[in-house]
């Protein structure tokens, strides 16, 4: 076993353990902090896959900002999860069927890291080989994000913009009458 396999295995094991712990916990505070751990482990996994830009985003957004924002949110809603007294058979059935369908779906996917997978044979080779000439910057991720797919990125920024509009409209104090700062 090479070092990368060992790193991948231990990260995935810790990821799975985090999920098991997350499901069993009742304190929202602990759940938010554990999901921060989950994000950080994912970031480590992305680094192992050489996807440093994604890892960077996952560490900053998933482990950092999301944790803080969720902590701020539970300071509004309270720290304990309300335990529901309903029967749990229906949700269990839904989750089992959905999970089985998802696993069935992955059977058709190309093996992990397969160089002949459709995603690696379509436009990706063009981006990897031509972008330094066509765009002139070394980071291919930035070339794709900001130039080849600039329109999609504008949409992403619009999504984040919408999130802020939603939060400000629902919870913002500036919406109240006669309060100008």
């Amino acid at each position, binding site marked *: 076993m090479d070092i990368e396999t060992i790193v991948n295995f231990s990260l995935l094991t810790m990821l799975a353990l985090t999920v098991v712990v997350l499901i069993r916990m009742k304190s929202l505070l602990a759940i938010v902090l554990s999901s921060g751990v989950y994000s950080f482990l994912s970031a480590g996994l992305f680094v192992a896959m050489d996807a440093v*830009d994604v890892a960077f*985003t996952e560490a*900053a957004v998933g482990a950092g900002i999301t944790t803080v924002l969720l902590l701020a949110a539970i300071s509004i809603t309270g720290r304990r999860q309300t335990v529901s007294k309903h029967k749990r058979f229906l949700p269990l059935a839904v989750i089992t069927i959905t999970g089985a369908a998802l696993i069935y779906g992955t059977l058709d996917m190309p093996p992990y890291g397969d160089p002949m997978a459709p995603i690696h044979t379509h436009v990706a080779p063009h981006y990897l080989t031509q972008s330094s000439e066509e*765009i002139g*910057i070394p980071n291919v991720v930035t070339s794709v994000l900001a130039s080849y797919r*600039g329109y999609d990125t*504008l949409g992403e920024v619009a999504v984040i913009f919408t999130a802020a509009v939603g*939060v400000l409209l629902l*919870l913002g104090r500036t919406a109240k009458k006669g309060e100008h700062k």
Partner: protein
Amino acid sequence: MDRRTSLIVREVCRLIIPAVMLFALYVQFHGEYGPGGGFQAGVIFAAAVILYALVHGRQKAQQILPTNTVVRFIVAGILLYAGVGVTTMVMGGNFLDYDVLLHGHQQAQHLGIFLIELGVGITVGAVMIAIFYTLDEFSE
């Protein structure tokens, strides 16, 4: 948040916050050469402001960066991004076709990417700060 924060926390944050902000600028303007870009830079910058707000209280942070200013930055960033697109259209190209901005092909791409990444960074950073302010204000 009017509780007193411990001296150690305050002094450590005094050291960390400028470094985090500088790192955000590095990630913003170096995204074409290394990992990073507007999204990450915006989040890191927002993290510095949020850390300040956590340590010194939200009101102190709002004295430096009021909610209204943050909201204006949210709009300014996305307008900068879309504005680049509209400018290229006015100059005779397609939407977000940077080549019409400057004569050299690669220079034009550089300029376009620089501007839209800046727009992304401004909007993302301001959105994170605004959401934090709003949640914190609401919880009082």
